[in-house]
């Protein structure tokens, strides 16, 4: 039933894009952790989480994202989020994730604001 997560990493300027496909649930933990570990190994300081509009994210997936955002904060990394449907933008606002990662309407808008400087 579960569509396994698949995360492709892409570096655009000084921002690393986490292109997340498939469901984001508690079962996504190894995928997210692996991607984040790779990013850490590469010395990444800016991370943009890109979701597909029709993605399924449940509370287990949100808890995982919160764990990753805790790590980004600890490691002084900047985090952004893009690609969310209006519903999940509302959910992310509702649970307070937006205090730790800004939501952008598009990859271009995110890169425009996150690229360069600190």
């Amino acid at each position, binding site marked *: 039933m579960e569509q396994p997560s698949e995360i492709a990493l892409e570096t655009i300027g000084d921002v690393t894009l986490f292109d997340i496909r498939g469901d984001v649930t*508690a079962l996504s933990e190894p995928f997210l952790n692996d991607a984040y570990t790779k990013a850490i190994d590469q010395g990444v300081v800016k991370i943009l989480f890109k979701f597909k509009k029709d993605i399924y994210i449940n509370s287990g997936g949100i808890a995982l994202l919160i764990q990753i955002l805790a790590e980004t904060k600890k490691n002084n990394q900047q985090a952004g989020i893009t690609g969310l449907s209006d519903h999940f933008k509302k959910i992310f606002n509702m649970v307070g994730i937006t205090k*730790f990662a800004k939501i952008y309407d598009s990859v271009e808008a995110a890169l425009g604001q996150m690229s360069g400087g600190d």
Partner: protein
Amino acid sequence: MNAKEQMVKKLNSHAVEVSLPSKLGYERIAMDCSACFAKMAGFAQDRIEDLKTAVAEACLNAIEHGNKGHPDTRVLVTMDFKDDRFSVCVKDNGKGISRIPRDKTVMRRIENLEPPKGLGTYLIKKLVDEVEFNNLTADGHIVKMVIKLTDKPLLSGKRQASGGTTI
């Protein structure tokens, strides 16, 4: 009576029940069934999305905590539409939720970037118009959720919880 009114009249007299295995992932079936039913009843897409997430979270709790993923158990999801109220009952074989974390506790944990226990019940409370936790039956536990057709779109994120457990 036009076609839409005829459809609503039909929906008013027929409940739908879905029986799910206690396995993660099957909550998607309940989500899509409830979405389809709510769409036929005339709900706007934003409310259907709220309902889908609430149904998914109630099913996840039933699978993981109520039935503890036991392969011999099922999660029963009953949907009904009557008098502009769309209700979804999610039943498992458990004994209910012993302690539902308060919203403030959930939010405080998130603000501290700690693993948020009770996030599922928090989302349900925020997304539906009414919710009753801990309706105990002879053979299990039911969570009942209602969204109202006449209700205004969710703006503030604040919903009312009521019933078995007062929150």
